[in-house]
């Protein structure tokens, strides 16, 4: 059972075995978080940030581990191919050293599991850990229950050439997994971090995930999340970035799996001249539901933000996008642009796109737009007059709509991985494989 009390009891039963359980600050933090969760319960539509996604059903939802675990090694091999890179693998919410291959790292770079980092550098982890008041109640539950995740610390001026891949795979013993990833990028450092969420099976599982990124002055961080959980899964996640002067942060959120997925993605400009890209793509069918709740806080002047979300919605699915942009009173010469475009592949699918602009400065460029549409008949006709049958033409146009989001992924190998993940979802994707 998922009733709030159940989670609270689970917390008390397990807290002594959690990594860092002997650190008083962490034990305190976890207790505050579980109290907050117990107090607030699951968010419902009455909550202003959850108007389109109620989690009230969670009180009655049973979670179970899958009877058979995915073959983690095989899944990893498919994903990884012959990529060298840095690969950290987590199975059932715990770091798996055997499957992981952290690889060679430049001097001073810390890349470990969070559990190891709590042993090795507890003070640094404490500074990055976050507080029990962050986000909404699911974020508090994550803080209380998180068993592991990744720790990445990039020292001043160091660039990681190969992406860091974090792979999260469900197992056959845990009905839920709770992950916390902490990334600290010191000034002028540079890295790309990819989170893969993989699951298989018929059981309803729960994943909560929180990723916190501290992007110091002039650092450049790209974060890509590829959510491919099993169809019955529930996935509740947040990505929180803070950017210092001149920092660049790009987030790509690709949501292809899970019955219900919620991503809260927030970044805040704490220094002048920051730059951010929030790019998203979701594909839904059946009765699935995805909600991206984003916010960009232009707290300091001369920040630049670009936000593009695209949805492909089939069946009775529902895609929700909220794009909040805050421009503080003194954040003059801010430049913000936001778009959300949805392609409805069935009459019963539903898209909600809601910009929320709060602009307190006067010298600001801010543009936003949203579209919801069906497949373009002129384009379909054009392709058919060239000999492509209706099904092939529709697949091609569906792919083309999504490709605009994928093309914003700068690193080609990552773009190819993202394309492959999309193709695996689109009916008849194999016909389009030459596009890869």
């Amino acid at each position, binding site marked *: 059972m998922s009733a709030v009390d159940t989670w609270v009891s689970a917390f008390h039963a397990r807290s002594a075995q959690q990594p860092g359980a002997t650190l008083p600050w962490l034990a305190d933090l976890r207790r505050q978080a579980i109290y907050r969760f117990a107090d607030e319960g699951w968010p419902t539509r009455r909550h202003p940030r959850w108007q389109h996604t109620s989690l009230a059903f969670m009180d009655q939802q049973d979670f179970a581990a899958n009877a058979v675990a995915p073959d983690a090694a095989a899944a990893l091999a498919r994903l990884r191919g012959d990529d060298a890179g840095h690969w950290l693998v987590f199975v059932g919410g715990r770091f798996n050293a055997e499957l992981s291959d952290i690889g060679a790292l430049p001097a001073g770079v810390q890349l470990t599991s969070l559990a190891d980092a709590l042993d090795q550098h507890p003070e640094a982890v404490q500074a990055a850990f976050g507080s029990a008041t962050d986000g909404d109640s699911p974020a508090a539950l994550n803080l209380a229950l998180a068993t592991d995740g990744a720790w990445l610390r990039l020292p001043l001026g160091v660039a990681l050439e190969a992406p860091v891949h974090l792979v999260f795979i469900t197992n056959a013993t845990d009905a839920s997994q709770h992950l916390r990833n902490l990334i600290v990028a010191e000034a002028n450092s540079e890295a790309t971090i990819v989170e893969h969420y993989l699951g298989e099976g018929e059981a309803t599982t729960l994943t909560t995930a929180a990723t916190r990124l501290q992007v110091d002055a002039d650092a450049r961080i790209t974060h890509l999340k590829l959510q491919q959980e099993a169809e019955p899964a529930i996935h509740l996640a947040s990505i929180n970035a803070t950017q210092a002067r001149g920092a660049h942060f790009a987030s790509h959120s690709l949501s292809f799996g899970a019955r219900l997925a919620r991503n809260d993605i927030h970044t805040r400009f704490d220094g002048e001249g920051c730059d951010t890209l929030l790019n998203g793509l979701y594909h839904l069918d059946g009765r699935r539901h995805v909600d991206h709740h984003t916010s960009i806080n232009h707290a300091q002047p001369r920040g630049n933000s670009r936000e593009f979300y695209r949805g492909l919605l089939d069946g009775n699915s529902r895609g929700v996008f909220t794009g909040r942009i805050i421009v503080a009173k003194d954040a003059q010469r801010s430049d913000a642009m936001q778009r959300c475009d949805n392609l409805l592949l069935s009459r019963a699918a539903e898209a909600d796109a809601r910009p929320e602009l709060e602009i307190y400065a006067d010298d600001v460029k801010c543009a936003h737009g949203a579209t919801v549409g069906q497949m*373009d*008949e*002129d*384009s379909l*006709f*054009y*392709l*058919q*007059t*060239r*000999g*492509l*049958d*209706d099904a*092939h033409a529709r697949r*091609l*146009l569906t*792919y*083309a*709509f*999504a*490709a*605009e989001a994928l*093309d914003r992924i700068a690193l080609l190998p990552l773009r190819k991985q993202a394309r492959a993940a999309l193709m695996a979802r689109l009916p008849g994707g194999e016909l389009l494989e*030459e*596009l890869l």
Partner: protein
Amino acid sequence: MLDIKNLKASVEGKDILKGLDLQVKAGEVHAIMGPNGSGKSTLSQVLAGRDTFQVDGGSVTWDGQDLLAMPIEERARAGLFLAFQYPVEIPGVSNAYFLKAAVNAVRKHRGLPEFDAMDFLTRVKAEMKAVGMKEEFLYRAVNEGFSGGEKKRNEVLQMALLEPRLAILDETDSGLDIDALKVVADGVNRLRSPERALIVITHYQRLLDYIVPDHVHVLSQGRIVRSGGRELALELEEKGYGWIGDAGEIHAAPPAAGGA
């Protein structure tokens, strides 16, 4: 090859084609001219299979088959090609993928082996050279950000690759400067053969200086009101369309050039 009898078509209850007759034989080039709104583009769209137009009567026979009963892609695979007046932009799909998918769909239907990537590139590059397109256009999205002339060249490129038996050029000359017009016309002329037929739809006779037709038809109010040889196009150039009455009738004495 193509036999159109008493073709009637409408869109949203508005009659556009009102009993059109036309016969096209292999090897022939037909020009269809007429004022705006006469039904020229509707004819091309109906032949290609656009379902926004409702066929209300008449028949179109293609090699003894009922063309109007064939799905759009079957018409294309059987050798009917429409060069669009306004080619559609398809962001996210590379021109190379699009061209290869089209060529292979048609080749498969004709019982020819599908091109592999190498064969296709060799072939497409040769054809691109002939229509004056740079190779970079292979790797750009279909028609996206192409100029008017580049889009029309891309249409002619598709036509060359698909090797149709009947090509319909719908105002392929519109928006082209004279150099682009010559390149496009050269591309079309290279396709002329005793097995192939062309229908050139145009408002102006200018294109017909370069693609010389065997037959010229004047379309007005959804009917062909006059047919003749090449000299008819020159006459139209001189006199405009004013000599055709509102109901499509031909005035006994055409007014002076540029009149009413």
